[in-house]
């Protein structure tokens, strides 16, 4: 039976924000496999957090893999097992320290775009793997990372995110 772990931006900070420059990417967060188990991303959920916005705007999110070295820095994300009988997660990850427009330090190599999703500035959105074969996978011990990038046509939109990995 696989072990499923959830992560949430709230474990680092209340709000993340897209760039102050329209259509400019920020490398918000990354996931990196541990030495002993593969890290399978099976879902990301995002939520635009506009307050009292009077026009419609959208946020886009992209999933990319750095293929030579993994991203680093930021503040560590906490991985909570959905069934607390599971052992501790071996995957690690981080999000930009202090929230807002802060980013992690991007890895190197590629990056390869492996997925994406979006949401309205005050609405929900996300991506869920169509089936287990379609999970975004990094093998155990790989010195690579899967990163979440944000972008929006309107500058500085707030959001938060949650996700699930399988090990």
């Amino acid at each position, binding site marked *: *039976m*696989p072990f*499923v772990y*959830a*992560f*949430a931006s*709230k*474990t680092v900070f*209340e*709000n993340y924000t897209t760039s102050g420059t329209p259509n400019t990417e920020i490398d918000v967060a990354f996931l990196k496999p541990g030495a002993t188990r593969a890290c399978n991303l*099976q*879902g990301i*959920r995002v*939520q*635009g*957090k*506009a*307050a*009292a*916005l*009077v026009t*419609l705007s959208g946020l886009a999110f992209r999933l990319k893999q750095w293929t030579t070295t993994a991203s680093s820095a930021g503040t560590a994300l*906490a991985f*909570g*097992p*959905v*069934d*607390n*009988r599971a052992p501790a997660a071996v995957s690690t990850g981080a999000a930009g320290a202090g929230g807002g427009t802060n980013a992690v330090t991007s890895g190197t190599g590629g990056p390869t775009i492996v997925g994406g999703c979006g949401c*309205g*500035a*005050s*609405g*929900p959105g996300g991506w*869920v*793997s169509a089936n*287990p074969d379609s999970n975004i996978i990094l093998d155990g011990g790989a010195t690579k990372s899967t990163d979440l990038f944000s972008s929006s046509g309107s500058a500085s939109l*707030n959001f*938060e995110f*949650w996700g*699930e990995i*399988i090990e």
Partner: protein
Amino acid sequence: MPFVYGFHSKFEAETYTTSGSSNTEIAPLGIFANGNRVCSLQAITVQGKAVGLTSLNTLTFRLKGWTTTASTVGSAYDPQPMDNRAPANVTRIVLGTGGGPAAVSGGSGGPKLIGGFGCLASEPGGWVSIDGDGNPTVLAFGNYPGIDLVSSSGTPSLDYEFSGEILER
């Protein structure tokens, strides 16, 4: 075969409300195991209930697993079987008494953030477990003794209601 039970905020009140302070959490719902089956949350739906709102606003919801004791203070209810042939539930819920910004309490240890989702102030939203392995699980002894649903919004005092499904096996 698992047994599936539903619950609704309307068990207790017509409307629940996010905090009167921006980005401040309130737990309107606690789920806990009252017997020795494996009890899993498999879905939550929410609906923003704004009336006459003239700007776009957001509610976020988070699922938190308590690691020592469950939230049991509030108004207690039994989730109802989806198939009426099912035996009595062992999972129970508590709801903030009287609705509005009322909260449940009593949880301790952790909590660990184990999920989240959101909705617009006048729109639906929710979360469904990707598969059975992804169900947040509560057990009467050890594991997570309880899971809370926590609300938050950047704009204070937004109305909503919610419902959910629990699987026991």
